[in-house]
């Protein structure tokens, strides 16, 4: 976040040029922080030649709340609700990552039943997050309708969340050591119903977009990111997978009960916006697959591991990451042996992925910038923390 960027010489060297009739100059366009499709308060300064993008600069921080500083001043359990507010469209995943990191620090493991519940909730959350992405991405590219269909189906998930833990968005669903909420009567049936209803709906989205020539034209070959670029830029999640790297932490370093389920990692070939779209759509189908498996086989038993009332891990440090809907979500926690974490670092996928924007849009048109911001699936709450 910076003020007075218009005076930056490297961005705005218009004054140095002799302006004559029919002279062409570069144009600096300020997109955001109030803009319909920067997904929140992202500000992008575009340097344009006509409509062609010569370079971009992202200005972020408008939503900075100092989550990491807050963490240092809260106990471990107290900080748990705050992580929901980073990636607020995938709050459950955030909570899962944090709880697991602290569990690792405490050297405890959630009981099997809790692990299954966590998997179900997290996969539901993945679908919900991808729904938001699908809707807003389509909206960015000009299709007004998918957003409403996506939110209609996301509503079903949020209802399950509300029934399970009492909140829809910032769920605070898990606790360190397991879950505090036992599943409600009919939870399995709700999830199954959702899955059955959702798959035809997903076909409907695809009918609306996948073969639509305008959609294909707008997304194919747009914002191409090769696998090497992805790795060099630290880009993870569906963006990396769309570039052909079959890398998913749920498979590579299985956490919770993920090793017990069968699912595929969808990958793309070209690393363009269209492949990322297909990958995310496939991920929703895979999530349904996991859900159907998990919901059939929730084991009996306790849902909370033996965790002391006052959580006080031994001094030490741990880095734990999970596959959030947007990529690798990592928590690096340093404990000094007190009740409060000494340092909590969140490795936010959106923040790191957003860095690839410049690489992806150079030489493209203004309309592609919007498409690429949408395809990166950023949540500014997570970028700025």
């Amino acid at each position, binding site marked *: 976040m910076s003020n*007075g960027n218009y005076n930056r010489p490297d961005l705005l060297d218009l004054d140095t040029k002799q302006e004559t009739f029919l002279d062409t100059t570069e144009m600096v366009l300020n997109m955001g922080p109030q803009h319909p499709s920067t997904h929140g308060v992202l500000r992008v300064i575009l340097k344009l030649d006509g409509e062609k993008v010569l370079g971009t600069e992202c200005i972020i921080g408008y939503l900075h709340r100092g989550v990491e500083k807050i963490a240092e001043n809260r106990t471990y359990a107290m900080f748990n609700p705050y992580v929901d507010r980073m990636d607020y469209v995938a709050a459950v995943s955030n909570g899962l990552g944090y709880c697991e990191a602290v569990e690792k620090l405490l050297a405890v493991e959630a009981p099997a039943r809790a692990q299954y519940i966590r998997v179900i909730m997290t996969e539901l959350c993945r679908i919900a997050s991808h729904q938001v992405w699908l809707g807003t991405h389509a909206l960015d590219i000009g299709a007004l309708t998918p957003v409403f269909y996506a939110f209609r189906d996301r509503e079903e998930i949020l209802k399950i969340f509300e029934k399970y833990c009492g909140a829809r968005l910032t769920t605070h669903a898990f606790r360190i050591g397991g879950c505090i909420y036992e599943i409600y009567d009919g939870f399995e049936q709700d999830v199954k119903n959702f899955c059955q209803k959702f798959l035809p709906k997903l076909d409907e989205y695809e009918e609306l977009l996948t073969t639509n020539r305008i959609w294909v034209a707008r997304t194919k070959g747009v914002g191409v990111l090769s696998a090497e670029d992805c*790795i060099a830029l630290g880009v993870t999640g569906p963006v990396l997978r769309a570039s052909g790297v079959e890398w998913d932490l749920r498979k590579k370093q299985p*956490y919770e009960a993920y090793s017990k389920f069968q699912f595929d990692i969808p990958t793309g070939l070209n690393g363009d916006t269209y492949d990322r779209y297909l990958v995310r759509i496939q991920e929703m189908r895979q999530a349904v697959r996991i859900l159907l498996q998990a919901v059939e086989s929730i084991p009996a038993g306790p849902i909370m591991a033996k965790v002391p009332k006052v959580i006080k891990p031994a001094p030490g440090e741990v880095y734990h990451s999970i596959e959030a809907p947007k990529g690798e979500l990592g928590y690096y926690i340093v404990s*000094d042996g007190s009740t409060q974490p000494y340092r909590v670092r969140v490795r936010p996928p959106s923040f790191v992925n957003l860095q690839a924007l410049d690489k992806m849009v150079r030489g493209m048109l203004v309309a592609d910038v919007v498409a690429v911001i949408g395809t990166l699936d950023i949540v500014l709450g997570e970028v700025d923390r």
Partner: protein
Amino acid sequence: MPDENKGPEAVSPEQGAKPPAEPTASKPDATVAKPAVPAAASAAKPPDAGKPAAAKPAAPAKPAGPVPEPWDSELVSNLKRQYGSGIKEASTYVGQSYLVVDNAIVYEVLRRMRDDEQYDYCVDITAAHWPKREQQFDIIYILYSFQHNDRVRIKTQTGEGQHLQSAVNIWPTANWLEREVFDMFGIVFDGHPDLKRILLPDGWQGHPLRKDYNILQQDTEWVKINLGIESGQ
């Protein structure tokens, strides 16, 4: 070696590694930060901050948590052979390996890790502030190798005013991560193409994730000039 939870094995409070040595140094400092916690308007909140603090003196004996074990692998021996005492420590803690490296050679080690050891993905760069120490800052590079499916942390220490070599030339992703470290801790990276604040406004004074930066603290002057209000609280 994936992030497998090995669980506690050795149960003696041995003070070998650095992190266990810290609590004594940081405890007073943590209590400095604590009064800030109740950001509340309510003035009355006496017992709450006191309770954890009171529980603390009794605690150290109790948590018999996991302890770091020496980390032996080909990688470590290779690095040790090349850099000798530059590699200060190689340990594993709850199944996670880390190296502590002298800050003079960290750039070389990182480059080597990427080029020769296939740790080609820089997950994260972050820091921690230990104000009581001479070299106040830990810089932590978290690396991942797609080939080995393994994560390694490279840690180095640096002092106030000391500069580090930027890793942007190794991983472009280091750009924003280092900017954030600079923003939050004030650690300067040499050779960074555009080292400026990223989350906080350009003119902001202070680096908020340092331990001496109170949670309620803010750059009042900046707030006054730019927002036209007395306080953001």
